[in-house]
């Protein structure tokens, strides 16, 4: 190889790799927009945003199933079991996967999202799907675009590999969108002989949580709200969310949003809707931090607000918090906060002997949901235990010593997170047993 040429290439690449300051700032800012850690299950984030933007971009139309491709295996797929997507026509999961805007070729269910590479063995690693939740897969017809909305030019579609498709994997009501997925070897039905993938608890192994109703289907007309702040005057509301670019009449990919508010009893209902834009259908699906300010007609005196995508949030410690009576001496409540993405609301409390909370191993974090699933999990080492004679699930993460205990008290879901450097399993279970409902 010509060393001089390689030197020039290296210099050119370093020059081209000089990061754009605006993009770098946007990336840094995006850390603040990250959802809570997946231990507490929450919505998708950028991908959900992409879905919303894509919906906005292409507009809603009626479900289009491609008759030519129904029940037809892809050319090179080995033993696919492509169920007739007509079987899912009208299924809200298809609509949630943008199936109302692009022709669907296949649709099938997965018992666990983490099985995606068993169903789609050529699909690249997608860590966001490594969860136990059931999932629904929509494979779009060749050439269909789900992010950005516009179909490719005919010449591009013709040059695509025969098995390349846009795919949506719906998990917990959230569409995860992928383009250029190789569906070679796709299997809709794994059959009884299929080997198991990574071990992990399925929702059905957590009998303490079975009695809860499933989470609501998200209303896709609304944009998920990242945070809401009610000012001290109880009238000025600041709403942050991820959406399209700031609206400009000259920018066909910009979007203007509108916030809708109403008060229902003790709850402030808030929804963010796109008002104008985008005018083009080839916009990218990059999310931008957006903010809306709303002034309420009268001061809001309640203590909770509901995102019209279906999730309840608390502005202050809610009523009905259980009390931990068995904490070691010196361990006190240090902080409490709302935890997003629960249809019935969740509250987090952190206890520690240290005011600084600098050492997470010297903390106990308690999650409480109110008549809904607490949706907290932990490490891969899972066992069933008993708390007050009721089944509970214990998760252990050996590398960090993190212990997570999930159980139910009355109608509420509870979870304790502690570290075995400080608490043994027995001590953690005893602590859980010491939880007392108000008035109990």
């Amino acid at each position: 190889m010509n060393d001089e040429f390689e030197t020039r290439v290296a210099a050119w690449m370093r020059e081209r790799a000089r990061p754009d300051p605006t993009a770098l700032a946007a990336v840094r800012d995006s850390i603040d927009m990250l959802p809570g850690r997946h231990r507490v299950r929450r919505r998708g984030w950028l991908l959900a945003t992409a879905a919303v933007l894509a919906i906005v971009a292409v507009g809603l139309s009626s479900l289009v199933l491609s008759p030519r491709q129904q029940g037809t295996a892809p050319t090179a797929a080995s033993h696919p079991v492509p169920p007739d997507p007509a079987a899912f026509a009208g299924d809200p999961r298809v609509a949630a996967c943008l199936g109302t805007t692009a022709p669907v070729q296949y649709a099938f269910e997965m018992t666990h999202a983490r099985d995606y590479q068993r169903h789609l063995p050529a699909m690249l690693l997608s860590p966001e799907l490594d969860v136990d939740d059931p999932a629904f897969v929509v494979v779009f017809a060749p050439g269909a675009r789900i992010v950005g909305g516009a179909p490719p030019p005919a010449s591009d579609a013709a040059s695509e590999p025969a098995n390349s498709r846009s795919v949506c994997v719906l998990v917990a009501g959230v569409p995860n969108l992928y383009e250029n997925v190789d569906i070679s070897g796709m299997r809709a039905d794994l059959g009884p002989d299929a080997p198991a993938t990574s071990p992990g608890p399925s929702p059905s192994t957590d009998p303490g949580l079975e009695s809860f109703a499933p989470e609501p289907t998200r209303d896709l007309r609304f944009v998920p709200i990242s945070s809401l702040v009610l000012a001290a005057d109880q009238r000025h509301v600041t709403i942050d969310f991820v959406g399209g670019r700031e609206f400009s009449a000259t920018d066909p990919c910009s979007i203007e949003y509108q916030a809708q508010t109403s008060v229902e009893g003790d709850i402030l209902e808030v929804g963010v809707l796109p008002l104008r834009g985008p005018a083009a259908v080839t916009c990218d699906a990059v999310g931008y931090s957006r903010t809306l300010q709303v002034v309420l007609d009268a001061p809001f005196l309640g203590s909770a607000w509901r995102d019209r995508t279906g999730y309840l949030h608390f502005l202050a410690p809610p009523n009905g918090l259980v009390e931990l009576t068995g904490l070691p001496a010196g361990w006190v409540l240090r902080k409490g906060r709302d935890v997003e993405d629960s249809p019935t609301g969740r509250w987090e409390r952190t206890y520690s002997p240290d005011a600084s909370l600098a050492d997470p191993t010297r903390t106990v974090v308690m999650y409480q949901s109110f008549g809904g699933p607490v949706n907290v999990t932990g490490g891969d080492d899972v066992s069933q235990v008993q708390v007050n004679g009721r089944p509970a699930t214990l998760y252990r993460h050996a590398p960090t010593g993190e212990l997570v205990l999930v159980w139910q008290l009355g109608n509420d879901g509870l979870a304790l997170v502690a570290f075995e450097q400080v608490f043994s399993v027995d001590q953690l279970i005893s602590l859980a047993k010491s939880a007392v409902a108000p008035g109990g």
Partner: protein
Amino acid sequence: MEVALDSPGRPLRTSLEPLVVAARAGDRDAFRALVEPHLAVALGASTVLTGSAADAADAVQEALLSAWQGLEGLREPDAFPAWFRRHVIRAASRASRARDRGRVVELDASLPSAADDLDRAVESRTLGRAFDRLDAADRLLLTLHHVWGMPVAETAEVLDVPEGTVKSRVHYAMQRLRASYDAEDRR
């Protein structure tokens, strides 16, 4: 942050474990401290791969999300930098392949300023076109090698190839780039 003496007479080695433990507990500032040293090069490498600052930002954001949500999968905390790089590479490679499918691509970011020497500007433009004509695998390999300065062992692991073939692949990728460059130069 915990600081450990690696061995007498050797530089101090800073353990990432406390930051990883804190990030796993949901501490965004700890996560920010973990990723901050790598963001600029991650964005730069992604820009090279995708040819678009917007796509690169999108890829790095996707990598941040998957790393943040996948921290349980990091078995060795001090391996965080390499582990995070893999998240970035995966996301940027996806975007890069998407580019090959005809997505909107921005023009070469290294457009000449008025002060640039004309020859250098022309060569930069030609190199950009030549690089963009390579397939995604070659672009990735050259980016890992020249932008990230990734060690051969890690490159081999990322590409799932034997260490011994990495250098030859870089060589052949560079040959193809040279051929592509010559073709562009003749146009």
